[in-house]
């Protein structure tokens, strides 16, 4: 990994079309400004990892499909009961 030292306000250029500027340094936190062509998506890595983990957990299985179908059925029954109560 290339490591460069930068001061506040200084910039790094990648490939002549991405600019990364250190806008503020406060204790152990730095604020970074990124200017990139709009086809580049920029996200925080830990958020991306959390979304990956969530997607993996969400993969539908026969169990989850069964749970969903049972809920749909039970709700339809409840709706029917509500209708009966309304009629009464």
């Amino acid at each position: 990994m290339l490591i460069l030292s930068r001061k506040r306000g200084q910039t790094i250029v990648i490939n002549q079309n991405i600019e990364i500027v250190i806008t503020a340094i406060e204790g152990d936190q730095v604020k970074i400004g990124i200017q990139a062509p709009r086809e580049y998506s920029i996200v925080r890595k830990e958020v991306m990892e959390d979304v990956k983990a969530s997607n993996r957990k969400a993969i539908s299985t026969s169990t989850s499909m069964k749970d969903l179908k049972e809920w749909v059925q039970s709700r339809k029954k409840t709706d029917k009961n509500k209708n009966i109560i309304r009629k009464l």
Partner: protein
Amino acid sequence: MNVLINKKLDLGDSIFGFTEFRYFRVEEMDDEAGFLLLQSEENESVGFIVVSPFHFYQDYEFKLNDEVIAGLQIEKPDDVAVFTIVTINQPFSRSTINLVAPIVINIKTGHGRQVILNDTSYLIHSALFPTTEGGI
């Protein structure tokens, strides 16, 4: 949403953690609450239960950034459909939806992608039923 049922979607390599799966189709699972199955065309064991987030969170909103609008060639708001992935938990009433990473689809072209919202107050594991037990 209905216009997408059984339509082939091209999600590119956008589904986080599943970038090798590109083509999906949408199958209807429940016409009332709007549960759909987003099924991989390339691997039958890869599928996600999805819903329209607006059905469960009426106030849900986010701004599409230029990158997504350009990438999906979105011309107007009516071109867009939004899904969120559901994680089914036990009991079912504790299931969650991912409001941080909606799947945005151009219904005209069938192209879509999962987008991560930066600086949002929504949660990856938002309650599917925020106020009621199982919605019943």
